[in-house]
């Protein structure tokens, strides 16, 4: 094989791709259903995250991201033990020494007031479900000693 300069090889690859693009054109992508089920069961089925028994009225919202994949946001209040149960299940349950950034606050749907009212102790969790490719993330705030406000976010990790 004649050695080629990398740029030459990449140009050849680009040319091949262009030709292949012509050969493979056609066939549209199917439109995903625009309805996302926001029940607790649907969230658990999607994310693999089981919400604790006994929590009252978890707020579950979902929308499509730029890749037409669902993104779930879940919010509930419970005991610190319930928060730990959920986040231990997700993985990497750790103190968030750096707190919550403005970008994260918006992504997780945490109000500025809730963040300000919470104490300095902020914890979080984050891990990829290897079977489904869903990334699950959580932030936990402690507005008082006996309550934990849990904010979860689940989405398909783009390729």
């Amino acid at each position, binding site marked *: 094989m004649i050695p080629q300069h*990398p740029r030459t090889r990449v140009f050849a690859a680009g040319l091949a791709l262009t030709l292949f693009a012509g050969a493979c054109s056609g066939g549209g992508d199917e439109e995903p259903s625009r309805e996302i089920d926001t029940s607790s069961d649907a969230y658990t089925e999607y994310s693999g995250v089981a919400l604790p028994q006994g929590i009252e009225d978890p707020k579950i919202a979902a929308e499509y991201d730029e890749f037409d994949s669902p993104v779930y946001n879940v919010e509930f209040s419970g005991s610190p033990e319930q928060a730990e149960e959920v986040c231990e299940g997700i993985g990497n349950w750790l*103190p968030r020494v*750096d707190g919550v950034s403005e970008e994260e606050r918006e992504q997780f749907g945490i109000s500025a007031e809730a963040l300000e009212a919470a104490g300095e102790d902020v914890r979080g969790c984050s*891990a990829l479900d290897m079977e489904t490719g869903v*990334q699950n993330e959580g932030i936990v705030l402690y507005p008082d000693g006996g309550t934990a406000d849990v904010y979860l976010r689940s989405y398909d990790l783009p390729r």
Partner: protein
Amino acid sequence: MAGVWPEASRNLLHFMGNSGEPLEQDVNQMLEDLPEFRNEVDGARRGLGAAAIEQAQQAGADGPVTFPVNTAWTGHYIGEEHDKNWFLATGGMQYDINGSVTVHPPEEEGGEWTYTMTTEVNFRDQYNWDGGKGTDVLPGLHVSDKVLADMHRAGVAQEFPMYGTSDSTTTEGP
């Protein structure tokens, strides 16, 4: 492209080579090039250090105590807006942190608990392509992910596993 996007070029060529063989990635370079990724890893390290201190305090440690560190695999997405080279080279990927952390109780009563942590970052991903996306790899040359996915399905190119490990890094805290 190879000069501007070296990792993207290397991985695309390996894909076109159609071997399907695993290809090692330079995780040190990744951490250097991607401040968002580096910050995420550093934040996780600080969290691991804080958790280790909590655990040592709860156990009533009165001397240095060492814990293993082995995090769950976590996803991280390198967007086009972050770094086009790594976006094209890997995009969404997975990492974990391995190593150990040693907690040092305060030498004087009321002093500060500290930790020393030595960890490395492991990376893995599958070089593959989604339908419905695409990118401009060169001016005027738009390549859709569908085309690349079709090449894999047609057997003229092959997806492959990517992996890598950073050098060990020693950090101290809090």
